[in-house]
């Protein structure tokens, strides 16, 4: 009886989860329908399953000027952003935790405070500031901004992790004649590996998917990143949505690859704040 009941429950759960999964996948299906059908076919069959694979939309999409430039820009920005945010935040969190005095604690409060600030409330003064140092419409200006907007949360993540690392290893390294930098980068940083992975995927996604910041900092065609390009793409190709969706699907590939390779770390990264504290 209970076994039957259990089986019934599992069936129900499976059914509900299937319906939810279909709901999650439905918007992707709409995008695929547009991308894999010619315009005339889409007008005729709408959302019916594509009967033949039509690739001309993809060819047209990659021939759009600046399509690959946007890819390149996104890769450059994400790479520098991830590297910078990891180095500056891990060193900063490390010293705050190890010094444990009021001076360093004050900085920790500042870092935690800025997490709460919405970017749009400060974007105009920042825009003027970037303009003053000729960083508008440059990739490094965008990198700097993304690092600044992420550093608070990443320091918070690192600080929680550093607290759990025994100090004895560092003392041993110091006795062996390592200076502080060597101690940090040779002894402490490797011990941070789990949180490094988390920070890596989290900041990569934040950088790769960022729209709010690149929208005001990188408006010129040569410095646009993928989300910004897609935004203008759909505007310019509103009469030919198929090409726009084909471009969007190609642009989605790197994220989906990263997702399936690093799923575990993405989940950990996004739920990291919840487990600790």
């Amino acid at each position, binding site marked *: 009886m209970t076994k039957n009941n259990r089986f019934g429950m599992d069936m129900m759960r499976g059914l509900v989860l299937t319906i939810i999964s279909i709901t999650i996948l439905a918007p992707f299906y709409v995008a695929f329908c547009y991308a894999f059908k010619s315009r005339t076919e889409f007008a005729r069959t709408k959302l019916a399953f594509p009967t033949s694979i039509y690739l001309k939309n993809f060819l047209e999409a990659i021939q759009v000027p600046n399509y690959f430039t946007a890819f390149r820009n996104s890769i450059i920005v994400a790479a520098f952003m991830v590297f910078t945010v990891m180095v500056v935040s891990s*060193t900063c969190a490390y010293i705050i935790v190890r010094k444990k005095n009021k001076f360093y604690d004050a900085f920790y409060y500042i870092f935690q405070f800025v997490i709460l600030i919405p970017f749009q409330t400060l974007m105009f*003064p920042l825009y003027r500031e970037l303009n003053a140092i000729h960083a508008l419409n440059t990739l490094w200006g965008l990198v700097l901004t993304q690092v600044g907007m992420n550093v608070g949360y990443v320091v918070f993540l690192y600080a929680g992790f550093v607290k759990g690392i025994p100090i004895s290893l560092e003392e041993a390294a110091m006795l062996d004649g390592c200076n502080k930098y060597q101690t940090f980068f040779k002894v402490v940083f490797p011990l941070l590996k789990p949180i490094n992975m988390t920070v890596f995927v989290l900041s990569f996604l934040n950088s790769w998917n960022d729209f709010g910041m690149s929208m005001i900092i990188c408006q010129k065609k040569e410095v646009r990143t993928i989300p910004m390009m897609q935004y203008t793409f759909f505007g310019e190709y509103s009469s030919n949505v198929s090409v726009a969706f084909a471009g969007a699907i190609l642009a989605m590939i790197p994220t989906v690859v990263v997702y399936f390779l690093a799923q575990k770390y993405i989940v950990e990264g996004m739920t990291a704040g919840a487990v600790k504290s």
Partner: protein
Amino acid sequence: MDVERIKAGPVDGVARVLFAQKKDESSLRAKRHGNKKMDIKSELVDLSFLMPAFLVLLFVILIPLVLGVQFTFTSWDGISPVKEYVGFKNFNTVFHDKDLLVPIKNTAIFTVITVVCVNLIGLGLALLVNKELKGLNIFKSIIFIPLVISLVLVSQMWMYVYNDFFSFIGLENPLVSKKYVMLGLCGMCIWKESGLAMMVYLAGLKGIPSDVMEAAVVDGANAWERFKNVTIPFLAPAFTYCIPLWLAGGLRMFDYATVATSGGPGDASTTMTYYIYKYLFPYNKVGYGQTVAMIYLVVCIVISTVITKQLRKREIDL
């Protein structure tokens, strides 16, 4: 002789210890004095760990914060080289501005609906996937996919879902209706982010000790009582994490409104951040726009802090 020795022994010993201490102290003092340079150097090394992160923060957030405050006292258009100072005039305008009521209302609707729905759906999903089931990992992977897609792409896909699929099943496209546009945007957010809430609540559920649950079963608690008296209290840290997260996310919602609707139709989906953007960039009314922005910044921080504090307090009570 022996007696003498015994008598002298301890005294001698004490003297030796005292002497040693003195020597230690003086040598230490000499070392400290001589190494004052070393101390400063070591402090500077420590500071060099802190400073890179802080300097970025200073440039990207703290200086704009100060500049932002300064702009609120001007009637600047953001372009002309002269800034005219107008005192508290902007604040006066903001507090009597009826135009602001629409973005406040829209932001409140979006925030409340997404906080409630994302958390309830996330919790429900977590309960669904908490027990073993064939293919569970596939379901979990699928539910999590939207999280890695950019908000721009999510908005664009949903524009066409609403446009094509909704008309296919005989529903109105919510994005072109003044009445339903905010619900349409909420739908995108719920679709994208419920998976994250699921993962957080799932981590919480995994943390419930099985003996506590078994004890509740032995005590004859039914499913609802077990949920209310065991599961919910154990999930308190997850609530404390999730609610402020989506609260902050709702208050700063920008991408959906910008990409999917440009704040329209009319101003029916203009949120606070989009309103601020409109006044700062396309309208060139920096003095006014930045005043709204700075007030909103304070409001966001106050709301987030108060709610987090309340949730922490409840966490202890539970």
